[in-house]
């Protein structure tokens, strides 16, 4: 029973229709949660004792930074699945993740820089966390560049999968960099063992935004995945019913 379900997940037409059906279930909640998070974060929640209203930048920086890593991990896992079990759909998922991840990483870097400027007195520091986040951006760009430079789609899938898996060493570096080194960046207050060290009134909008961004990512991924599947399944018969309006 479970095996047939797993098999269906590898079938492009099934995934295509599943993605089409699921997208609104992620898109609309994402939009609502983002609105709620924005209102809570910008208006309702209190200013920080030390950073005042500047603290509110956390509500965009932390979700985007978190997503930049989550998206890469998703990309690396689906690439590995595609590489090991030779499942084309998994490669399509990985390919769809990359542009989203790259733009979100850029956003994380810039919002972080804008937050750091008034708080640390500098727009940029070559400290471990910022450097490894920059490396993450280069990994995304390298992945996309490698894909586009390789002509054969199957080879592009597999070679970029190797790259994605190799690059995954960067993810624990990003996360633990603030623990291992004396860094400008603050130590983890959320993703750590034990209770989060952040006030509840600030935790709520942060969680809302985190959830909103996660749902947003899945929604965009599903749309891109459909486009990716269509372009791969060049003249498969199932496309006819799906594409003719």
């Amino acid at each position: 029973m479970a095996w047939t379900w797993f098999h269906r997940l590898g079938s492009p037409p099934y995934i295509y229709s599943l993605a089409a059906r699921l997208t609104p279930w992620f898109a609309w909640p994402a939009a609502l949660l983002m609105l709620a998070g924005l209102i809570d974060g910008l208006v309702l929640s209190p200013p920080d004792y030390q950073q005042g209203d500047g603290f509110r930048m956390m509500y965009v920086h932390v979700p985007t930074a978190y997503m930049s890593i989550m998206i890469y991990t998703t990309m690396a896992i689906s690439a590995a699945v595609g590489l090991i079990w030779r499942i084309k759909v998994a490669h399509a998922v990985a390919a769809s993740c990359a542009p989203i991840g790259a733009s979100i990483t850029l956003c994380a870097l810039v919002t972080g820089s804008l937050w750091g400027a008034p708080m640390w007195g500098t727009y940029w520091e070559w400290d471990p966390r910022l450097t490894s986040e920059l490396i993450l951006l280069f990994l995304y760009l390298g992945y996309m560049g490698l894909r586009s430079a390789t002509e054969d789609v199957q080879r592009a899938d597999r070679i970029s999968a190797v790259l994605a898996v190799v690059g995954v060493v960067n993810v624990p570096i990003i996360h633990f960099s603030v623990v291992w080194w004396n860094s400008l960046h603050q130590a983890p207050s959320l993703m750590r063992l034990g209770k989060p060290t952040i006030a509840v009134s600030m935790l709520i909008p942060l969680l809302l935004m985190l959830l909103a961004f996660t749902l947003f990512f899945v929604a965009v991924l599903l749309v891109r995945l459909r486009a990716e599947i269509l372009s791969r399944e060049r003249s498969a018969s199932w496309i006819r019913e799906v594409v003719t309006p």
Partner: protein
Amino acid sequence: MKALSDFLDMGGYAGYLWPSYILTFVVVVLNVVWARRLLGRSREEARRRLATRAATEAGAAPTRAGEAT
């Protein structure tokens, strides 16, 4: 009015905060727009491919029918 201008001022951090939020908003919207456009284009391309295939098949058939007679 003062409340609004205070809000926009964000305790003096406006110059950093609003660009952050605007950039994030732009990235979110661009992702949505770009993804949807990509899907639209893929569907268009698929439609065109199917149409040309149908056309070439239809074009080939009469010749065969003509040869049969």
